[in-house]
């Protein structure tokens, strides 16, 4: 009784265009954080302009099992298409397969599950681009040499690990005189990120740069630099949303923050679901209503890339509300 709307796979839901009731959803990594709220903002508008209803849900804490439960809940409720940003690349696979079995369109967005039966991955920017951009951001003020540290999120979050790996690759090839100290520090919350950053600075008084990977680490690392009175002496960048980083970027405690236009990722995600629901082929370079630039599609990996990362600095950060 559950393989409902949108059944029959790519050959379009009954009455392709007249999908006033078509329900699409997105499962985020956590509920409520500004980042995913911004995503929702873009996605919701696009969905209503395409005549669909949009729901977004996510676990209260980054808990992969809970994410599966939420995903299955949506499957149970007859959603036609579901996008998900999996917390880890594998644990979603069985659930995705089961949903596909029921004829539901499933894509990943924001983070991928490459070995799954997802039909498409809407990617914000390539990991390589993100990693090297953030490395460039701290390397610049460091003059390309000296010690730097990385404060990451949970050790088993794949997305963070990929970014970190790419950043380190960039450093090794482009900035051989820079040196990572203390290994990658894993944290679960802001207070802990604060402590880790402090300890890194204590153990390495000559530390010159810090990368804060998840949004939660960004204010902690910046605060640590501020408290230590090392504003301007330690370069800080990371992947914080502009709203989270703004106070620190404006005070100078952070050099910049690297991200992408999150509402646009929401737009892209909903648009992609719509294409799949309608059974349309996605061209290698597609124009998406609402996005200023065309997006690239790689049919081999079924990856749709939004564009290059965006760097937010003192000059532009105030314009972004997420």
């Amino acid at each position, binding site marked *: 009784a559950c393989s409902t709307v949108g059944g029959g796979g790519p050959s379009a839901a009954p009455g392709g265009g007249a999908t006033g009731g078509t329900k699409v959803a997105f499962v985020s990594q956590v509920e*409520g954080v500004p980042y995913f709220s911004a995503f929702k903002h873009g996605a919701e508008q696009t969905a209503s302009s395409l005549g669909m209803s949009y729901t977004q849900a996510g676990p209260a804490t980054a808990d992969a099992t809970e994410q599966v439960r939420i995903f299955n809940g949506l499957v149970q409720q007859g959603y036609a298409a579901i996008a998900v940003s999996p917390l880890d690349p594998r644990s979603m696979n069985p659930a995705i397969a089961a949903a596909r079995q029921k004829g539901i369109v499933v894509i990943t967005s924001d983070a991928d599950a490459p070995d799954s039966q997802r039909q498409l991955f809407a990617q914000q920017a390539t990991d390589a681009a993100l990693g090297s951009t953030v490395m460039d951001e701290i390397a610049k003020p460091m003059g390309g040499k000296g010690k730097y540290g990385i404060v990451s999120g949970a050790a088993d979050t794949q997305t963070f690990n990929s970014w970190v790996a790419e950043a380190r690759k960039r450093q090794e090839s482009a900035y051989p005189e820079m040196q990572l100290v203390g290994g990658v520090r894993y944290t679960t919350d802001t207070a802990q990120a604060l402590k880790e950053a402090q*300890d890194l600075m*204590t153990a390495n008084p000559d530390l010159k740069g810090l990368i804060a990977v998840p949004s939660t680490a960004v*204010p902690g690392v910046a605060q640590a630099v501020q408290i230590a009175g090392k504003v301007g002496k330690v370069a800080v960048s990371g992947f914080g949303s502009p709203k989270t980083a703004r106070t620190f970027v404006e005070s100078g405690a952070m050099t910049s923050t690297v991200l992408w236009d999150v509402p646009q990722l929401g737009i892209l995600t909903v648009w992609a679901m719509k294409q799949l629901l309608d059974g349309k082929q996605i061209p290698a370079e597609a124009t998406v209503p609402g996005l200023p630039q065309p997006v690239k599609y790689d049919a081999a990996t079924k990856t749709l890339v939004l564009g290059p990362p965006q760097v937010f600095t003192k000059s532009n950060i105030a314009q972004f509300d997420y």
Partner: protein
Amino acid sequence: MTTAALTARAEPSARLLTVLRDALLPILLLAEVIFFGVAAPDFLSAANLGNVVINSADLALLAAGMTLVVLLAGIDVSVGPMLGVVAWVGATLFVAGLPPLLVVLISVLLGGVLGAVNAGLIVGGRISPIIATLGTAAVFKTILFVLWDSTDVFTGPVIPLLGPARAGGVPLVGLVVLVMFGIFAYVLRRRVFGRRLFAIGNDAEGARLLGVPVGRTSFAAYVLVGALVGVAALIYVGRVGVVQATAGQELTLPAIAAVVVGGTSILGGEGGVLRTLGGLVFIALLQNGVVLMGVPPLWNGVLVGVAVALAVAFDVLTRRSLDKRIGAQK
């Protein structure tokens, strides 16, 4: 008659052993400081120790409150989420421009009120402390999530005393914490309220038979925990600088850990707030020292777990064998 046998056991060496037993925790602490002082060159720097003090100050107050209710044979697992709620309210009011002292007052009051909710459920509703506070912990989490509403609150310290400020390298919050612990140590030893906590923790029914106001005392203890959370919340705001959706939630387990590592009996009626301070400092220095020693990040937890187990085993086993020789225990 029996006196002969008894005095034989109570000879001066027993006093020495008693002193030794009480000095175990300080001895462990000293060993720890020496070890890290040698193993991690930056460990003993004033800057580093200052960081440790500032970063543990809020936890210290939670642990002090936790000690009171553990002495009562109770527990409060809602302190972390409660701190989150108070921190959000305090930070928001401060950002809105309320005078700092008023914000402090409101935070303490709000903490007291939330503590009174726990107290009401436990004393009035006769729910076991663990159930009541597990429940309110969940509710506080949700309240913070709703209040926060996807918007982080950024702010500096509400008053300098509760911030990361240092005077001559000495962190001010450290003094606040010391004064608080001093007060509680005094209350537990010299005030009737403190003595009542011990009696209730030993045998609540027995205490009631002797006219100890069990309900009133327990209520006050849980309210006091809330009020302490109120102060701790502002310290948290002062050092982290931002209140997010899960603020404070990570603090519950460490607060309980500090109490039990310090040696206050989870069964109630035995222990004290200075022991808790010892337990707290032990864990805080351990976590800090392990990082400064350059232990690979993922191994930190392994070392901390092993060290805590070893320290407690040493403390408990030595204390027990000493107790046996002193004849204090059956």
